[in-house]
């Protein structure tokens, strides 16, 4: 092989035609810029399928997406409010606590270490407890006791009313605990005259913009 180096110097070891240009021609121009991000396509894509089946599946897909946001399986992290303690905190519900799970799985099929307290949608039992707790946390004991007895009397009346409404709502409880709570929040909360959104201090206005990006689904 070394011996044939002198002979046939201008011969290449492969078929020159295969290169695409002959001898003596200039090389093809080199690229000066990176290729464009959206190069024009020589062959346009084929249009999508149409028809009743396709439309129905499209509608199903969008419905599924929207409804999965409302299911308890959609987990949102609870952001602790690191601001000053506000008056409205008492009325703002601790809806999304991290240590409660919003549905009740079958714990016998899961490892014990995953067991978490199941949060039932707020019923009548929770409300008197909340007020009792906050009252207890507040002040001195004797005044407290008087207040408490007064409270309890008031609440017995109140909880009787609430129990009746609670029974009516147990019917609707199955599928929409959210609707249930909205209903509760709106009118029956902790003996205030204001609806719950009155106590909204606007902290959630800008904060949610990073999560939950699809709001409306068409």
């Amino acid at each position: 092989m070394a011996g044939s180096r002198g002979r046939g110097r201008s011969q290449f070891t492969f078929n020159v035609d295969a290169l695409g240009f002959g001898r003596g021609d200039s090389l093809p121009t080199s690229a000066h810029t990176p290729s464009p991000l959206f190069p024009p396509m020589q062959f346009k894509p084929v249009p999508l399928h149409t028809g009743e089946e396709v439309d129905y599946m499209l509608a199903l897909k969008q419905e599924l997406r929207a409804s999965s946001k409302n299911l308890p399986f959609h987990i949102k992290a609870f952001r602790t409010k690191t601001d000053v303690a506000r008056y409205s905190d008492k009325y703002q519900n601790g809806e999304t606590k991290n240590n409660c799970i919003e549905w009740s799985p079958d714990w016998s099929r899961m490892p014990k270490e995953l067991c978490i307290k199941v949060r039932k949608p707020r019923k009548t039992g929770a409300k008197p407890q909340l007020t009792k707790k906050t009252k207890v946390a507040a002040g001195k004991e004797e005044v407290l006791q008087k207040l408490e007895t007064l409270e309890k009397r008031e609440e017995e009346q109140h909880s009787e009313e609430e129990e009746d409404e609670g029974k009516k709502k147990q019917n609707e409880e199955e599928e929409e605990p959210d609707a249930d709570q909205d209903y509760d929040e709106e009118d029956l909360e902790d003996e205030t005259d204001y609806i719950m959104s009155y106590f909204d201090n606007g902290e959630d206005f800008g904060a949610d913009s990073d999560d939950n990006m699809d709001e409306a689904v068409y």
Partner: protein
Amino acid sequence: MTAQEVRLSGLLLQEHFGDVVEKVGTRLIRSGVLTLRALAYETKLPLDLVKKSLCVLMQHGMCLFGAGRRGPAGPVEYRIISERILHMLRYPRYIYTAKSLYGDTGELIVEEILQRGQMTMSSTVKTVADRLTHNMPEGQSMDYSEVVSAFSRLVETHFLQRCPPTASAGSSSSGAVNTPLPAVKQPTEPEEHPECYKLPYINLTGQGKRRRSSEDGEADQRAAKKAKTDDSECGDEGIYWQVNFQRFHLHFRDQAIISAVSCKLDQTSSEIVRTMLRMSEVTTPAHAAFTQALSANEIFRALPSSYNIARPILDQYLTLLVDDPMEFVGKTGDSGGGMYVVNLHRALANLARATLESVVQERFGSRSARIFRLLLRKRHLEQKQVEDFAMVPAKEAKDMLYTLLSENLVQLQEIPKTPDYAPSRTFYLYTVNQLPTARLLLQHCYKTVGNLIERRLYETKENKRLLEKSQRIEAILASLQATGAEAAQLTEVEEMITAPERQQLESLRHHINKLDSSENQVDETIFLLESYINSTQAAR
């Protein structure tokens, strides 16, 4: 899992279950098997959130747990089933199939079970009856027995199956009652359980309840109390049902074969193939290469009565099907008028090949497609031979071959004549291998769906303000209409959205519909390629 699959899984988890579950899920996919503490440490999430996410994933059958590497005494380890997450893309197709086979009741049953992961029979029946009642006109309601019969039919045809029993979940093996946890690596197949498709006996009578909104009569209160006591009476505690995806996939595969036959030949041949597939539904195992052999007599008897074709005509059709180059049907014997089988794996391979060819055709033109088909048939060809066989001029052929080569659709095989691989003394052969090319296209499909989802999220985010405004206005309109407002008020509210905004909303809706529709269509290709790849792997 490949990078594209991980990305797509992350996007799907985020869409359905939120960011938290997405973080946990992708961390588990990337790391393989992890314990709870390790997972919490790596994702830097609070332990409770990690527990909740794992519960969600297990409820939906996407995550398994088992004894870890340290044996039953060590911490429990968790493992993700990646295909299950990708199945979420196909939910609309499953639901639509259930609707076409079993009507609205079947559709709602499958939808409920898909959304909730696993459910008991009684809770499914109640929920579906309530939903159906809600949509019925006033005064009518759906009886539980109809829903139960639809459920039974779904179970009999194996579209629903019982969830496999998990070993008792204590992490320390104490008494004799606790069987040791199976190793994480072998999940129990649901089919291994002998009672997989056995319906439990439940005493569930009643009708769907219509949800009332405001004032309720006494009757409803009593009915509500009765509903509470009914909960504990049904006899199927602890028996959970899940959707049998494999069965749905077999159904889709059969549908694909039938429609391919009807496109290639005609309606009658597709009916014959449909009959053959229906007859061998229960006798053919899931990964079989061909169905059980059926004699022509049996096929003749089993044909639907609307197709009264004569016996010799049926024989002619069968001969045509056997002789067809696509090889959907094969003849395996002569007894009983001829024994015929449907070649499932070969049909899948042909369908995948048709997909590859059409992809090349749509992206690179019909001449490139001709070269591609040529290489698929003739296996190895030199450049000169390609030019000759494809009847394409040399320069263009070279150009096209190099384009295909750069896209990795075509491979180059060197066959040296001398050990020093000198270019003048080596054969360079172009070749196409169907299986690796199918895998490549499958990854492209996953990437495509990921891009489509991201684009949809981007579009929604860009127009978030507008979408919120339109939602608020719709809510105002709805409440105004409910309280009976005048037309002037309604038009005033409607005018709060200006005309250019309306146009923008309309175009946004159009874009999102198009993106969603594309996702569904790409998923069909994904299914075909996945089935082909799985069938060739199973065959080995």
